[in-house]
């Protein structure tokens, strides 16, 4: 049963990582234009090199 001592913290940590990623996305305005972002991937500009 000692495995629980590792598994519970690990699962909490991984879940927390996901939560942190969501917070970052929210703060970085990733949810402000869902429709536009979905279409921008079809855009061919900067396909060959990153935008300067």
């Amino acid at each position, binding site marked *: 049963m000692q495995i629980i001592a590792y598994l519970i913290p690990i699962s909490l940590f991984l879940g927390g990582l996901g939560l942190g990623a969501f917070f970052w996305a929210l703060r970085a305005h990733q949810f402000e234009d869902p429709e536009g972002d979905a*279409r921008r991937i079809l855009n061919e500009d900067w396909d060959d090199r990153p935008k300067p």
Partner: protein
Amino acid sequence: MGAEMQMRPAACPACAVAPSAEALADAEAPKDARLFLSLPTIHCAACISAVERALNGTEGVRNARVNLTLKRVAVEAEPAVTADRLVGVLEAIGYEAHELDPGVIAATATDKAGRDILMRIAVSGFAMMNVMLLSVAVWSGAADATRDLFHWVSAMIALPTIVFAAQPFFRNAFAVLRHGRLNMDVPISLAIALAAGMSLYETARHGPHAYFDAALSLTFFLLAGRYLDHRTRAVARSAAEELAALEVPRAQRRTASGEETVPIAEIAVGDVVLVRPGARVPVDGIVAEGQSEIDRSLLTGESLPAFAGPGMALSAGEVNLTGPLAMTVTAAGQDSSLHRMADLVAIAESSKNRYTSLADRAARIYAPGVHLLALAAFLAWLWISGGDIRLALNIAVAVLIITCPCALGLAVPAVTTAASGRLFRRGLLIKDGTALERLAEVDAVVFDKTGTLTLGAPEPTNLGDHPRRDLEIALALAEGSAHPLARALAEAGRKAGLHPARVSDIREVPGYGIEGAFGGERVRFGRAAWVGAQSGAETASWLQVGARAPVGFTFADRLRPGAEAAVAGLVALGLSVRLVSGDAPGPVADLAARLGIADWQAEALPEDKAATVQALSRDGRRVLMVGDGLNDTAALAAAHVSISPASALDAARVASDIVLLGKDLSTLSGAVTTARKATRRIRENFAISALYNLIAVPIALVGLATPLAAALAMSASSITVSLNALRVR
């Protein structure tokens, strides 16, 4: 552009009518300009890159980014760059663009409240999943030290989460209790807090049951409902604000050195303001110089343009048609007709607040009932068990958790979100939370004419009566003017395949018409009095060739697309339809006959319109008012629910609950059907959650409820309610 500006749109209803001019002045300070343009036609990936490439290629533009969801583009540019230039750039590549007032839309540029709720949802969702995982282990048989350990870990996750995530409920409940009232947030807060507290106590006492997962899933589901509610409102608000932001409140003021563009708030009585042809009169005043015709249809409903010359009074909201005018301001700020509109709107808002939504009515019965039930369970078990407070409290908490309005919290927002989304896609913007419910109850409809059932755009009716040569001369003259009658004639002439005659020396005489020379004779096209004709009842322009008798071209207002379908659809739904207009009896009777409306009234003053609506209300009818002008505002406010087209005046749009974004009226009957369907779903949802309670409450009352049963009942009812709501789509 700070926090105080973000507060403004919500601060008072009048603010939406008189947009924040100081904020505008702020934005115009000499720093990098941040401009917003509305792009109504943008829809694809190619559009995004075309628009961004064109704008980024414009001199002085630092960065342009399109937001497709909001259909607008934000441009950061040097102060010298004006919105007009950018609009020109976009029009050159084929995109319609309009300038937006940055002050008015700033509030929705970042949706802080929405992000706040999303954050809380994320935290409670994360905690719920982890605690649920531990709870499953307990339910499947973990005992003794393992169970205690799991309970402690759950407590560690749950308690901080609840403190953070359930704050909106606690805050609302506290605010309501302080005023000595009850709402849905009170039982919610009580259930969450008691469940967490009781579970902590049980954990410390090595008890078998802890409700941490229930407290968390309650928080999670209810926050989800709250977010849906917020989304619906935010979408409506941002669209409504965009409409308001389209009219940038500026005026051209004459100064000693020339003229300058200033925010309307800076205009004072005695200033001389210039109004160009095609522009809206910004403040009240008296014409100082110039002659023109003005379109008063938004204020009075008259479809006929009126003559304006020196000494005549103009009020804000009228549109100058032909010649440039200079006017001396007689009323500005508080005294202007803008302020009168604000008063009307304030009345409208207060009358709307009298309606209590279905959810509030449910809460009013529900909240005290739940509390009494839990108290009764506590006292009964205290008596049965002979004073075992812990057992009695446990059962009371179980009752509170199981009856907690989880499904009720979702019942209304899930349906309104689905229904408003459906209506929004069809071009109807629901501005008010209870508008759908009120629309569902409607049994009478009152229409305004000009600008509502008609487009307010004339169309020639007797082209066939004239010889071809007259038509060609008229067409040549009409093409030289921006007057709506002339434009309508030019358009109709081109459609009929006519070619303009060779008329030379064409010049416009503002306020009268257009004249030119044809074959050595003077030709004139314009007002009856100018060419020496007798004006009749109909809207008409007259053509005079040389010294011959003038001939009349009559015009009728063009029907709004879908008007016939809308009236027929509403009648088919069993509603009585009435037409009330400020226009002359002739055109009104005409239109009523065309649309099959038997009940009509012409030359109605604004008070008459409101009185008509009030009389119907007194007879117990629930009236839907559809109108667009300032003369409709009082009626819009008095009606049970009101709709105005997007082309309406600010005041009318603010006073109405629903805004029609497209030109087509035929969506009206569909909107009533959708609203009725949505209200039915809301009632069904209430019934579903009542049914769950009916089954679960007796189980809790006899003390058989376990955390597992609570979790099952809660999830099952929430999911059924959400699925039922989706049927509205």
